[in-house]
Every structure is written in structure tokens, then in C-alpha cells.
């Protein structure tokens, strides 16, 4: 019993609810990758072991699996913390904003950088619960400032929006170059 306690003492630290769920998922992921090691990497006959394309994936995946198993052991031996599934729920809520990010990225080549950024800022501000014109205005102004800084001033490489093609000649050129 005392030995288990000591093991707990060695492993238990900084834990939060949901730790064991992550530990299981990570171990499963490591095992999945390790299982595919031979099919996803090659071994060149005659070459030195250290120079094999399989060498570093093998080292990292074996290390990942061993450490993940020990991490899981540490989690399993530690006292259970309430709120595991509530925590997993919190993680899953981040998927919504990951979706927003991808949708914003997908919209840029069609709508153009300036319109999609302003739209994303406005919609996200409404989604985040802001209703006052002051905050919504601040979100829009910040979005415009970001576009001006990165696209107009720093000339960061971003595609021009397809809708810009429908603009009158002079304006189109400006929008294609700076926004």
C-alpha cells in the first residue's frame, strides 16, 4: 500500500479533471501510429540503422507510447477529480470556434481579405455576446486596422477576392493590390 502511495506521490502533480481521458486518447493515438510504422515508413536494405528513414519515426513513436503509458499509469493511480465529462464538454466547445476559423479562411479567396475579415469580426462579436454598437464598432475598426497593417502596409501574401472582379476598373485595382 505504501508503495502505491509513493508511486502516486511521484506521478501526482498539476492534475486537472479530464486528465485520464486525454491520457487514454493520447496512448491510443500513439499505439495507432506505432501500429502503422512499418506500412508508413521504409527500410532501405544495406543502409546504416541511424540513417534509415524509419529510424526517427520509430524512436519518437516508441518514446511517445512508453511515456503515454506511464502518464496514463500516473493518472490512473491518482485520486479521481470530479468534473471529467464537463471538462471534455469544454474541449468540444472549442470545435465551434475552430469551425469559425476554417470558415473565415475558406471565405477569404472568394470575398476578399477586407470584407471577410470585417464580416468575421462582426459575426464573432455577435456570437460572443456583444450587442452594444460601441463594441461591435470596435471589432469592425480593429478588423480594418489589421487588414491595413498586414495587407496594405506589410504587403503580406494573401489572395485577392474573386468578388473584386465585379468592381469598377479603378476601384478593382486598388482592392486587388491593397485589400
Amino acid at each position, binding site marked *: 500500500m505504501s508503495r502505491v502511495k*509513493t508511486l502516486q*506521490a511521484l506521478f501526482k502533480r498539476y492534475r486537472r479533471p479530464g486528465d485520464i481521458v486525454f491520457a487514454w486518447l493520447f496512448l491510443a493515438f*500513439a499505439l495507432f501510429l506505432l501500429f502503422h510504422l512499418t506500412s*508508413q515508413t521504409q527500410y532501405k536494405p544495406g543502409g546504416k540503422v541511424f540513417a534509415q*528513414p524509419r529510424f*526517427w519515426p520509430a524512436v519518437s513513436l516508441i518514446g511517445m507510447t512508453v511515456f503515454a503509458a506511464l502518464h496514463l499509469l500516473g493518472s490512473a493511480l491518482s485520486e479521481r477529480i470530479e468534473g471529467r465529462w464537463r471538462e471534455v464538454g469544454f474541449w468540444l466547445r472549442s470545435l465551434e470556434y475552430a469551425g469559425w476559423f476554417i470558415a473565415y479562411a475558406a471565405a477569404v479567396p472568394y470575398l476578399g481579405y477586407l470584407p471577410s475579415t470585417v464580416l468575421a469580426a462582426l459575426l464573432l462579436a455577435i456570437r460572443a455576446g456583444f450587442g452594444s454598437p460601441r463594441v461591435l464598432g470596435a471589432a469592425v475598426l480593429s478588423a480594418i486596422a489589421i487588414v491595413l497593417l498586414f495587407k496594405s502596409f*506589410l504587403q503580406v501574401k494573401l*489572395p485577392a477576392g474573386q468578388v473584386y472582379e465585379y468592381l469598377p476598373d479603378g476601384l478593382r485595382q486598388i482592392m486587388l493590390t491593397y485589400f
Partner: protein
Amino acid sequence: MENFLAGFELLARWDVGLALLIGSIGGVIIGAIPGVGPAVAIAILLPATFSLEPIVGLTMLLGIYGSSMYGGALPAVLINTPGTAVNALTSYDGYPMTKRGEALRAVSLAYFASFWGGLFGILCLILLSPVLAIIAPMFGSREIFLAAVLGILLVILAHRGQVMAAGMLAMFGIFLQTIGLDAVTYTKRFTFDMTWLSSGVNLIVVVLGLFALSQAFMLLISPNDSPHPQPVQGRPSKGLRELLRHKRVATAASGFGVLMGMIPGVGEFTAQFMSYTYAQRTSKQPDLFGKGSPEGLIASEAANNAVPAAAMVPLLALGIPGEALTAMMLSVFYVHNVIPGPQLFQNNIDLVYALYIALILLNVVVICFLMVSTNLLTKIIQVPTRLLGILILILSFVGVYSLRNSLTDCMMAAGFGVLGLILKRLNLPIVPIILGMVLGGIMEVKLRSAMARVKTPLDMIDRPLAFIIFLTILLVLALHVRTLIREHRAREQETDHDMHDTQLR
């Protein structure tokens, strides 16, 4: 001296000056906003700096890196929320001082202690340079490989109490950099026959996902908050005189910062704890620590500001980054085909000295800026957190998409954003993944090139420097085992706490 002048010449341009100004003032502002941090800012700006000349881009990023901790002290002192994770200890003594009505004294001491630490770090770096210039060329492939192994080991072991988690995440980082086409044999590795994986997983995509997007998601999901610090009345320049009364503590703390900063994977957090403990042990009023001790505040701020300059040592001399921020800077060097390492000191010594001078200048710019802008910064802190989340999300897009205009990169970054959020919520470290990616790449390349001259495993350590690094690796492992045995015998259980150096970066 002529190297110094050559460095000056490199910096004496309007665009470099502007980059330094934007970087250092921007860094202070970013550091002052809780929940953003220099890693997020550097990750977002990184692709934008690729189109700039190396000295311009590096100066801007260096400005953010070196100045963010100055800004981070402000909310730590005024609202008990560290602006960056490394200012955590500052709040221990800074906030009680604010509650006692000594906000100006605390803020002012924090600024000047940071300045002292910053300058001390750079001075050490300059004094060390001739030694580095001699030692660095002695590092061949074997030595750099072993140093990278030591770096990985230290990153894992430095996360005490989370060694297993840090280990699995560092290994995950090493694995990530192997995905795609192998550069030597041109064989596919873990692409699962998907074309988008053939080009591998980009470091910047991972960094932006893990640091920036995860923070955006976190802020957007969490309840909205808007801190309201009280304005600081009076002149912040008063702290200089009080700091000079505690110069022993400030210098010792800066010394810890330099030492810890040079060791990969250790960094500001350890330096802060060591210097804080030292200051408490040697203080005439040890009971005051944690209740508003000026010495505690000085120890914490001087130590963390000495680190950025010291962290440049392994980066510039060996091309080995010690933590996530220098790992990101390494990619700027690579993009411009300036390879940090032994050759840098031989071929681009002017660039090295230019970076040193930039570090000095940024400290001067920052302290001057802070003397007049403290109350402006207290207003910036009041940005609602969810609005901040929206801005980080929009800014992250520029960082990811401008790399190669790829929607797949955005999807990957979003995936890493979710992973980063989970890690932050679980109090697990993110830095091992980034260092695993960078050091894993270095280990693979250097081991391959070293193997040409190695016939038996013992040949790996037949040179003096390689042997010393190998002994250091053994020593680090032995010390860790000894600590584990001692803990086992003493049945010590450290109290659980929320704070960790990777948490807010």
C-alpha cells in the same frame, strides 16, 4: 571593437529603427494584456517578417521578446494577474504593495529591476562572445547532436511532476517533424498517401495553433472579463534610487537569469524561483516575502529579464533554441538562409553584434516608453477578453494563411488550436512539442552527417567536447534519479498549484 562598429552600421537604417520601435513598444503592450503573451505575438508576426530583411525581421521579433516581460509586470502588480506567465512571481509581492497603496513604488521597482536584468544579460552576452567565438567552431555534427539530445532531456526533466507528459509531448514533436518526404531518401513517412501531408507539418502552423489559436478559443469560450486597474499616480522614475539600494539582489537575480537562460529548456521560470529563494534566504526581512517585499519583486523581475539575452547564446552559437520563442526565431534565420551555429560567428559576426546592440537599444526604448505610458497601458488592459479572443483569431489567420495560402494549413492550425486548448486546460506543457519539432530535426540531420565518420558507438564521444556533453547528459540523468530516490525516501508530496511556465505563453 570593429565588430561592434560593423554591427552598429548594420542597425543604422530607418527600417531597422522602425522595426525596433514597433517591436519594443508593441512587446510592452502585448505583454501588458493578460492572455496574449510574446509567443502569440511572435507567432502571428513571424510570416510577416519573412518578407523583410533578416536584421529588420529579427530586430522586430527580438523587440517583442525582450520587452514583453516589462509590460507583463504591470497587470501582475496592479490586478494580481501576470501579463505573461513569467511575471507570476512578480504578483506575489507586487500586488500586496498595490493593496498597501504603494502601486507606484511597485510598478517603478519592477520597471527598473527589469532594466537592470536586461542590461546585465546583454553585458554577459557581449563578454561571453569572444569565448563563444572560440568554442562554437569546436562543435561539429556529433557535438551539436549530443547538445540537442541534452536539450530534449532538459526540456523533459525541467517539467518536474509532469515528466511523463512532457516526455510524450516532446516525442510527439519529434514525430511531427518526421512526417512528409524524407529529405535524403525521398521516401514518404506517415503521409497515409495524402498529398497534403507530403510537404510535412510546418512549425509555424503548429506554433500558431498551439499558442495563438488555442488562446483565442480559450478566451472565446470562457466568460467575458474586463479588468479595471486603478491609474498610477506620480513619476515612475523614483524606483531607480530604491533599486540601487538593492543592487546585490538585482545582480544576483540577473546572474541566475543568465545562467538559466543559457541552459536549453530551463528558462525564466526556474531562474525566477531560484533568485526569489536566494533573495528570501539572504534578506534581513524574509517574512515580508509574499506580503509585499521590494526585494522579492526585484528578484523576480531582474531574473526574468536577464533570460532573453542569455537564451541567444545557444541559439546563435549552436543553432539550438532553448525555448519556444527562440525556436520561432530560428525559423526566421532559416528562411533567410542565415544558419545560426558555429559558422555564424565566423561569417556573420556583424549580425551577431547588431543583435546585441538591438537588445541594448530596446531596453532603453522600453524604459523611456514606460516612464510616460503607464496609465495608457492600464487602459489597454481593459479590453474585454472575448474581443481579444476575436482579434487573436483574426490575426492568427494572417500568420497561417500567408505562409503558403493553404486552407489545409488553416485546418491543421485549428486542430492544433484545439489540442493546445486541451493542454492548457489540463495544465500540461506545450513547449516540449515545439522544441521536439525543432531539436528533432536538428538531431536527425546531425546524426546522419556524424555517422559518416563514426565506425563504433564510442567514436561518437571520442572528441573532448562531445565527451563533456555526454558526461553532462549522464550527470543530468543521475541527478534526476537521485532526486526521485530522495523524494521516494522522504515521501514528499509537493502541493498542487496552478502555475506553470507554459500556461500563459
